[in-house]
C-alpha cells in the first residue's frame, strides 16, 4: 500500500514539474516576443545581444521541460 502511495506521489510530482516548466516555457516565449518588439521600437547597439540572450533563455526553458520529462 505504501509502495502504491509512493508511486502516486512520484507521478504527481512529475506532473507538477512538467506543468511548471511548461508555464515557464510560455513565459520564455513571451520574453522572446517582447524583446523583439522592444528592439523594433528602440534600436541601439546592444539589441542584438539582448535578442541572443532571450533565445538562450528560451533554449534553457525547453531543456528544463525535457529534463522534467526524462529524469523525474
Amino acid at each position, binding site marked *: 500500500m505504501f509502495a502504491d502511495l509512493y508511486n502516486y506521489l512520484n507521478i504527481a510530482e512529475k506532473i507538477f514539474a512538467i506543468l511548471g516548466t511548461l508555464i515557464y516555457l510560455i513565459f520564455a516565449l513571451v520574453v522572446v516576443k*517582447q524583446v523583439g518588439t522592444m528592439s523594433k521600437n528602440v534600436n541601439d547597439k546592444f539589441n542584438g545581444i539582448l535578442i541572443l540572450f532571450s533565445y538562450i533563455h528560451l533554449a534553457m526553458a525547453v531543456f528544463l521541460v525535457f529534463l522534467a520529462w526524462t529524469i523525474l
Partner: protein
Amino acid sequence: MARSKDLDTVAPDDLIISEEKIDEKVVVKKNITPKKEAAKNESNIGDKIYNVLGHTKHSLSSILVKPDVFTFEERAEKESIYLVARPHWFTNVSWVLTTLLLVVAPGLLKFVPIITEIPVKFQFLGILAWYLVSFAFAFEKFLSWYFDVFIITDERVIDIDFNNLLDKKFSEAKISMIQDITSRVSGVSQTMFNYGTVFIQTAAEVPEITLEKVANPEKIIKVLQILREEEERETLEGRVK
C-alpha cells in the same frame, strides 16, 4: 501758398532703389539660405547641448548626446536626435544586489539539513530552475531600464516606457507645445547622485510627460530651454521644417 500733399516727392528721406535691384537681392538670398542655414543652426544647437551635457555616447550610458547608432520606430526621416536619457545607473543597484543574492542562495542551502533528504534529480532540476528564474528576473529588470527612454529630437520630446514585459507606453509632445517644466530631486540617493523626476507640462493631447529618475534633471531642463528658444526663433523667422 498751397502745401504739398506728397512730402516725399519734395524732400525724400529714404534712398530710392529700383524694384529690379531689390528683386535680384532677394533671389540671391533665397538661393543661399535653406540648406546651409538649417545645417548651421543644427550644429549650433548641437554645440550648445554638448556644452551643457558633455560628450557621452556609450550605449549603456544614462545620457546619450547626439547618438550615432540609436534610433526609434516612430522617427521621421530627417528628424535628428539630440538627446536620449535613461533612468540613472544607481536605480539598477537594488536589482543587481538582489540578483547576486539569488545566485548565492543555492550555495547556502547546503547548510539546511532537510535538503539532503530530497532526491538528487529533484535537487538538480530545482537548482537549474532557480538559476533560470534568477536570470529571467535580472534580464527583465535590465530590459525595463534599457528600453525606458526619453528622447529629445529637433521637433519633439518622446517618452517610451516599458514598465514590465507586457506594458508599453509611448507619449510625445512637440517642443512648441511645451508650456512648463519642473523637476524634483528628493531623498538621500537622488540628492547624492543628482537624479530625479522632470515633469513636462504640455498643451498637447498628453498633458504631462514625466521622466522618472533621470540623471542631471537641471541639465535636461536647460537643453529643453535651448530647444524651445530655437523653436521660438524659427517661428519668428518663419522657418518651418
